[in-house]
């Protein structure tokens, strides 16, 4: 007697359970990293049907645009543009450099990924996740992009780290920057202010010092971290061109040893009765032993 077995069912034909059906949509979208581009179709579009609106990247470099145009002329467009359909026209989402380059050649049409029915934030997030993988995006554009991405995907900082391949501290700093006032961000972009100036400004306590720093950031006289340090140290306003005398101060990132040294020096200056002096000396020595351990 020969036994009979059921024919093998290939994996593709087996019934598949999608666990995501059971958990809230919200959670699933947090877990998914690649849902943003879902449902896009690829089509050849005429360039004149494409309109350019707000872009993550706001600074363009002319010579590199020419290079890109030459390259596209020779090799064709390798990476399709991404557009969003709005009524009878298409809004460009990703590829403004490529688009501009193609217009300058000029080219008639280009392959495009077409998206439909996405929210503004989702679009900004798509645009950003495309841009962030390349360098040379201004840090404020990048920060805004990360914030948009966070809003659109409701992702935690951890998920953003994974999805965009940016370090955790970078994500955190960028979110801080993106949440700053618009006028500051505009000014920083215009004057090429260093990132750390903004971060340190943000961390300042509200008060006259912060206000004066803000004013200087806004009018572009304060763009470097070193300048900001000087301002904070003197507690006032920098006069450009004039070097400021450093006032003696505690060593930066005060270590326990440094603290003890300063304390030792201070006690010598004070007029104390011998008993207190002795007690203090003892205390200092004991503490020093502990610290040295």
């Amino acid at each position: 007697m020969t036994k009979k077995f059921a024919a093998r069912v290939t994996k593709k034909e087996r019934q598949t359970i999608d666990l995501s059906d059971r958990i809230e949509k919200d959670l699933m979208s947090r877990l998914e990293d690649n849902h943003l581009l879902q449902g896009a179709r690829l089509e050849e579009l005429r360039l004149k049907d494409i309109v350019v609106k707000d872009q993550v990247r706001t600074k363009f470099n002319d010579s590199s645009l020419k290079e890109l145009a030459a390259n596209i002329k020779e090799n064709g467009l390798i990476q399709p543009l991404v557009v969003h359909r709005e009524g009878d026209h298409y809004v460009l989402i990703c590829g403004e450099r490529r688009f501009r380059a193609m217009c300058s050649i000029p080219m008639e049409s280009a392959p495009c990924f077409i998206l439909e029915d996405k929210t503004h934030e989702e679009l900004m997030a798509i645009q950003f996740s495309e841009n962030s993988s390349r360098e040379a995006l201004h840090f404020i554009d990048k920060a805004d992009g990360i914030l948009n991405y966070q809003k659109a995907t409701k992702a935690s900082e951890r998920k953003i780290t994974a999805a965009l391949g940016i370090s955790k501290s970078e994500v955190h700093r960028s979110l801080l920057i993106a949440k700053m006032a618009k006028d500051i961000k505009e000014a920083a972009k215009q004057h090429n202010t260093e990132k750390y100036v903004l971060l340190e400004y943000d961390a300042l306590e509200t008060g006259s010092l912060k206000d004066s720093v803000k004013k200087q950031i806004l009018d572009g006289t304060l763009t470097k971290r070193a300048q900001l340090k000087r301002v904070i140290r003197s507690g006032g306003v920098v006069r450009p061109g004039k070097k400021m005398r450093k006032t003696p101060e505690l060593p930066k990132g005060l270590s326990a040893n440094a603290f003890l040294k300063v304390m030792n020096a201070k006690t010598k200056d004070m007029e104390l009765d011998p008993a207190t002096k002795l007690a203090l000396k003892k205390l200092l020595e004991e503490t020093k032993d502990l610290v040295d351990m």
Partner: protein
Amino acid sequence: MEVITVANNKGGVGKTMQCYQLACHLANRGHKVLVIDLDSQANLSSTFGVQIQRTLIPEWLIGDVEAEEIVVASQGEEEFHHNISLIPSSRHLANLAKLLILSENEVRKNAGRKERLLRKRLEKIKDHYDYVVIDTPPMLGDELIMALVASNRILIPTQAQDYSIDGLEELMDTFEIIRETENPGLEFSIIPSMVNARRKIEKQRLSELATSFHITTPVRNLVDMQESISTKKPIFMMGNKSEGKKDYDALWASLNLQ
């Protein structure tokens, strides 16, 4: 709740087969069994008729979803399948190590160390099941270590062949470390598996193995086992004439799993 892990870092020694037979056997005895498939090959899941789009085991371990959300009932038709719940796997589990590194903060907050994650998660559902049977991938990765930390005992199937015994010795080193650090109560049983007792070399390897370890009765390499997987019928459903059934009955008796 007793947690049993089947492990050997050599592949193809019959781990998944043993998990399947064990889980069905225990369920048939009326125990509530949770089967956890930690192997990204997901063969155990598919033998229980479950194929999933994308596993959420990493999210469960990290704490983004609850166990209830990822547990699936066994899709088998027989009565005993009602006693079997399954946490299925899919190929995405291969990314577990990467995901755990990315989620370092959560892991620290949750469990202190990633090795303890599975134990932590199982503690929450310990009243729902009598037994947890864990299938592991054939490598000394996070999955295996977590399973060892979470378990009461490990079953180590090994072929009577050089490579498998190498794998077994490797695993015993890990086992010792885990017993010393995280899980002093962990016990192990070595099960000669897929044995062809007619071969002289295998007989010799078995007797050598017996001198350094305590080994259970062997499970032979029989066509019954292969048929059992293909037809998705556990070996105890085969008639009393089945040699495979005899092997497994003897094995469960010697392991005191009734």
